[in-house]
């Protein structure tokens, strides 16, 4: 069933892609086949693959249960939040929080997680910013 859903998704994606290719504006410069042809070929091959998925699906993969999906969803949300708040709160604070969350979810005890979070953030800051001179996000406190 999963493969059939992938196939259906592939068909929709390819249809959208081909439509988006046909609305590419024409340019005054032009070559023999133009900017639309190759994307349309990509779309057509995607359609063929998707039809194969629908007709001949593989064995069902092992999907995680609802609890684990929620776990993954939260981790992804945490990473999105990290990306969003990094420039405002600065590297060390954002990284401490995000690392603490991830290591806690991977099985560290709560208090340890905080310590691991802070030391990871400081460690990366020292190695990449102070020693190697990369630019990390500067928050209101300059780190």
């Amino acid at each position, binding site marked *: 069933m*999963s*493969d059939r859903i*992938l196939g259906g998704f*592939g068909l929709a994606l390819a249809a959208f*892609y081909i439509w988006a*290719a046909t609305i*590419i*504006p*024409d*340019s005054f*410069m032009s*070559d*023999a*086949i*133009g*900017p639309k042809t*190759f*994307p349309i070929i*990509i*779309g057509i*091959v*995607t359609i*063929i*693959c*998707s039809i*194969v*998925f629908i007709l*001949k699906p*593989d064995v069902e*993969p092992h999907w995680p249960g609802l609890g*684990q999906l929620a*776990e*993954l969803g939260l*981790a*992804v949300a945490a*990473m*999105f939040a*990290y*990306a969003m708040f*990094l420039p405002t709160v600065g590297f060390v604070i954002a*990284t401490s929080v*995000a*690392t603490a969350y*991830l*290591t806690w*979810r*991977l*099985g*560290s005890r709560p208090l340890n997680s905080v310590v*691991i979070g802070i030391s*990871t*953030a400081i460690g*990366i800051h020292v190695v*990449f910013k102070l020693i*190697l*001179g*990369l*630019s*990390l*996000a500067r928050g209101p406190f300059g780190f």
Partner: protein
Amino acid sequence: MEILSSLGDGFAVALTFQNLLLALVGAFLGTLMGALPGLGPANGVAILIPIAFSLGLGPTSSLILLTAVYYGCMYGGRISSILLNIPGDEPAMMTCLDGYPMALQGKAGQALTLSGIASFVGSFFATWGLVLLAPQLVKIALLFGPAEYFVLFTVAFATLGGVSSTNQAKSAFAAMLGLGIAMIGVDTQTGVQRFTFDEPHLFDGIDFLIAIVGLFALSEVLVFLEHHKGGAAAKSGRDVAVGKLMPDWPTLVSTRWTMVRATVIGFIAGVLPGAGASLGSFLSYSVEKQVVDPHSKTFGKGDPRGVVAPEVGNNAAAGGALVPMLSLGVPGSGTTAVLLAVLLSLNITPGPLLFANNPDVVWGLIAALFIANIMLLLLNIPMVSLFVRVLMVPTRILMPVVAMISFVGIYSITGSTFDMMLMVGFGVVGWVLRKLDVPLVPVILGILLGNQMEVNLRRAMTISDGDWTVLVGSPLAIALWAIAIIGFTLPIIMGRRLKSKIEASRPSEEIAAGD
């Protein structure tokens, strides 16, 4: 002779203090990444590319650092295979078969030393193979016109699934995803916007580094989260007891023909499209077993030759895989695809012209491979117990660090929140695709090669004035089409059998994607 003098120039480039230091750092990090389950050459190199880039290293120096990491991973993978029966990366899978039984017999140290020497031999001769074969391939590649190049890219995609692929439709689907993503942004030939929907973040297209780090590194973090695998690879100190390091001389001598056979097989497997290091080690082990022990009397029970063969094989294949990548610009495996990304991010186009335009880069790189290989031998035999200890770092600490370094890398090159979110998005897509058994490497290769592939197609069509038969217009092109078609259909016929053979020898643990 010409080759030797070029190689001499290469050593002059590589033997500066900075480059030697980078080779050492790369060799060290590579061994570390290879040893740790969950970090392999593909994602290890991937998270280091943006960092090497923002350090402002020159092309040669960056390449030296990252290929040293690549060679180092091939060494490091064996450590956890032998001690814990968990391959540190995909190609080290076969090393488990005889390495772990040797460790159980108390000969872990000897197995590590033997496999370290084996890795050195494989890499050393494969690097010579690269020196001799790559310039010859360049001569052929210079005959290629745009039409032939277009077909060559098709060959790369058709064969990338590899002979052990079970579902070619999924490989093709993955390649199309990558190519489709590559089309986003300004069309270089006419200057019109494609698939950007007036979103300014997309005008320049999607940076392949964002896709690579997301697909390889972040999806790995999600896999670990899903399974709640937070423990260390080595549970207790006893797991990592190494014991006596030096094997006795007769044992070492008894493996000499194994080394010769496995080097040849591994190198060929590496050069051929769609094979790579994993298949190199698998073939080396299987052939060796057929030759010296057809009735399975000692193989699988701790035969030193069973440790040597796959290690020689995967290292030789790693060197061999660099041949098509450097001389044609077409990588044959996941990790070489990532190395191609390194070159592209440094604005170097690999292929025949690389040897003519940037000889310092090519030969400096090759010289650095020789140097890194010697450093790796020195790091991996006397200092092996240091790397062994790394196996006791629990993944609940390691994986968040991997995630954060991924963010650091992308932030330092783009400084954009949008791009970091895009990377997380790629991580999620990568996780879903892995669940569905859709390979990630063709996606990456599609993003990397998409524009060149299209440019060559359009150039060919412009030259022929829109006549599609130009794509089959020369014997070379027809031969390439034949390879593509055979490479694509062969796995459909025999892939399942080979796959089940490889799966049968796989230990239970999950391992890193790509090779």
